[in-house]
């Protein structure tokens, strides 16, 4: 009789062990700006990720996901690199995710290669970041994806023959300038002036820059500045100087009409035309559902923006990897799983390009309109499935 009991006990233990072996816990190291001036960016991505996890929790089955969050504080790259080092060596994470600022992603890329950890970029937009490590996949955007088509669109559809570019003097600003200039001049336009307008930290008085541009009298003024104080000041200065009446149209990438900042820009922003891949105002089923879930979770006053969507989509990508590999993550397999991955994102259909591991999505022409007493984004045109033009055209570092 004793024998029978032991057998049952042993059998149960074996079963339990097998079940435990089945259920894997996937550790994901998340590196975002949780404090400092860019804390709100980190919060958007973080919320997007958490919302996806909450809504799709049951999809992982017996597998579990554990987020280990680290604060990268500022754009310098040093803190992020340190955090990634610890995440890989001490916490032994299976995957890395996040990265608001490009320098943080760039500094961390070699560690992902050495440690063989797949890295999902959820914001950092410098075009050539995915080339830095074979284990990087980007779900956010590249600066060229908005700037380059905007150049062509301005020349072909907006009727701009000449344009001036005003940009904040830091890497994404120069990236955006080059992208726009390349697209615009390819379509037959001429950039008559490119004006660096101070650094990203302090908002300068934009008047002297804009006065210079106004006196040059171009058809279009393409502006790249950080969203928030900078963008608001740009719109105010543009209106105060009466540049619209002087015949200069204000255009830019969608960063300057970020959803979270749009209402703060004031009525002067009406008529502004930007090129981007997401706005909370998109009227598609996937987006309506997303925005509704967001507001239910984080309050009716809060709004998701392109960073939040990147967090959501990035988590969708991570879920895809975990499901495909049944929780047993290795870098090669994870990246293979992500290559060619398609998803119906709130921003529209997206894909990870198999060759460059970069995002492919629709770029939409946004027009700022007044609707129900608030500023809103209207999509007036769409350019389907834009691949990063920088790598397509092999510009500079993108060609390497």
């Amino acid at each position, binding site marked *: 009789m004793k024998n029978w009991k032991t057998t049952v006990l042993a059998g149960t233990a074996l079963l339990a062990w097998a079940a435990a072996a089945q259920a894997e816990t996937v550790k994901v190291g998340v590196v975002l700006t949780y404090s*400092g*001036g860019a*804390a*709100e960016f980190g919060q958007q991505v973080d919320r997007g990720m958490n919302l996806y996890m909450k809504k799709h929790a049951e999809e992982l089955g017996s597998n579990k996901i554990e987020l280990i969050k680290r604060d990268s504080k500022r754009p310098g790259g040093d803190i992020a690199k340190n955090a990634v080092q610890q995440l890989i060596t001490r916490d032994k994470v299976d995957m890395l995710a996040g990265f608001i600022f490009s320098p943080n992603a760039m500094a961390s890329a070699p560690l992902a290669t050495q440690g063989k950890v797949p890295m999902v970029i959820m914001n950092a937009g410098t075009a050539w970041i995915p080339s830095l490590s074979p284990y990087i996949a980007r779900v956010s955007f590249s600066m060229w994806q908005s700037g380059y088509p905007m150049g062509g669109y301005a020349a072909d559809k907006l009727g701009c023959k000449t344009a001036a570019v005003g940009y904040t*003097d830091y890497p994404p600003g120069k990236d955006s300038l080059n992208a726009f200039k390349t697209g615009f001049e390819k379509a037959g336009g001429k950039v008559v002036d490119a*004006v*660096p*307008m*101070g*650094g990203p*930290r*302090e*908002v*300068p*008085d934009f*008047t*002297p*820059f804009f*006065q*210079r541009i106004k*006196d040059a009298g171009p058809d279009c003024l393409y502006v790249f500045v950080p969203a*928030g*104080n*900078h963008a*608001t*000041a740009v719109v*105010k200065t543009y*209106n*105060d*100087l*009466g540049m619209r009446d002087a015949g200069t149209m204000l255009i830019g990438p969608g960063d300057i009409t970020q959803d*979270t900042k749009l*209402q*703060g820009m*004031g009525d*002067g922003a009406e008529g502004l035309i930007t090129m981007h891949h997401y706005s909370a105002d998109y009227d598609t089923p996937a987006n309506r559902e997303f925005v509704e879930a967001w507001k239910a979770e984080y309050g009716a006053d809060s709004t998701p923006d392109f960073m939040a969507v990147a967090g959501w989509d990035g988590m969708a990508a991570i879920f895809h990897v975990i499901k495909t590999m049944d929780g047993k993550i290795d870098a090669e397999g994870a990246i293979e799983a992500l290559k060619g991955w398609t998803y119906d994102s709130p921003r529209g259909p997206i894909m990870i390009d198999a060759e460059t591991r970069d995002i492919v999505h629709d770029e939409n022409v946004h027009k700022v309109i007044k609707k129900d007493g608030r500023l809103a984004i209207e999509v007036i045109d769409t350019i389907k499935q834009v691949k990063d033009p920088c790598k397509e055209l092999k510009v500079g570092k993108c060609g390497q």
Partner: protein
Amino acid sequence: MDQLFNVAVSILFDGLAYAMILFIISVGLSVTMGLMGFVNLAHGAFAMAGGYATVSVMNGLGVPFPLALVIAFFLVGAVSVLFERVLYARLYKATELDQVMLSIGLVFMAIAAFTFFYGPAPLTFQAPDYLKGQIDLGFREFPTYRVFMICVGLAMIAALWFGFERTSLGAQIRAAVDNRRMAQSLGIDVDRLFTLTFALGSGLAALGGGLAIEIVGMSPGFAIQYLVFFLIVVAVGGLGSIRGAFVAALVLGIIDNAGKYLWPEGGAFFIYAVTIALLLIKPAGLFGRQA
């Protein structure tokens, strides 16, 4: 020729408007530094507090913008007295390093406190409609808000000039700046005088902060981001000189604008180059007295 004239007018006008903000915020710093030799790096924090106060009373109480500026002026002025009495007064005889440590500590505390209560994001602010757009001054159009700024600035200069040059209080302040010990010997209560000028200076900084929102926006970082410019105005103008602060603000405002207009690639280079050149020629500032 016409084009050249237009460019010159643009630069002078925008430079003047910019100079007004620099002057309004910096003049208080200049006078308090001249009077007590106190290095108050937290001056920018009072300007930031003024910006937040302006927006808070506008949004919270529905007060019109000009009145909100006045309220910010008095509110921040009054609060600054508290700081002056409780914290600053203890360190008047301390070394400059101690003073710098105290005031820079206040800056970081102010940034943290405002971030906690208002969040790190910039404030949402809309100037009233009558200050938007352009105003036609006969020969060409100018941005209305900047014209308003220049008017406020000129009014402040007139008031300050009158107060310092034509009133007994002003005479006492000037006497105390020139020679504190002699002034004290004559029975002037320098401590009380300092509290007053400190409040006035902080109030003016608050007014400047309120005016600046429309131009550069307002977030907690304001307390430190623009501090360098205020210190440049004080250094170039000379400690304790209202005229000096005004001329310095004007020179720097116009040169900065000219540089940005004519050679934007040079960035902020001009303002620093001019500062260095001026201080090499006149180490005590344009209107400062040699020690």
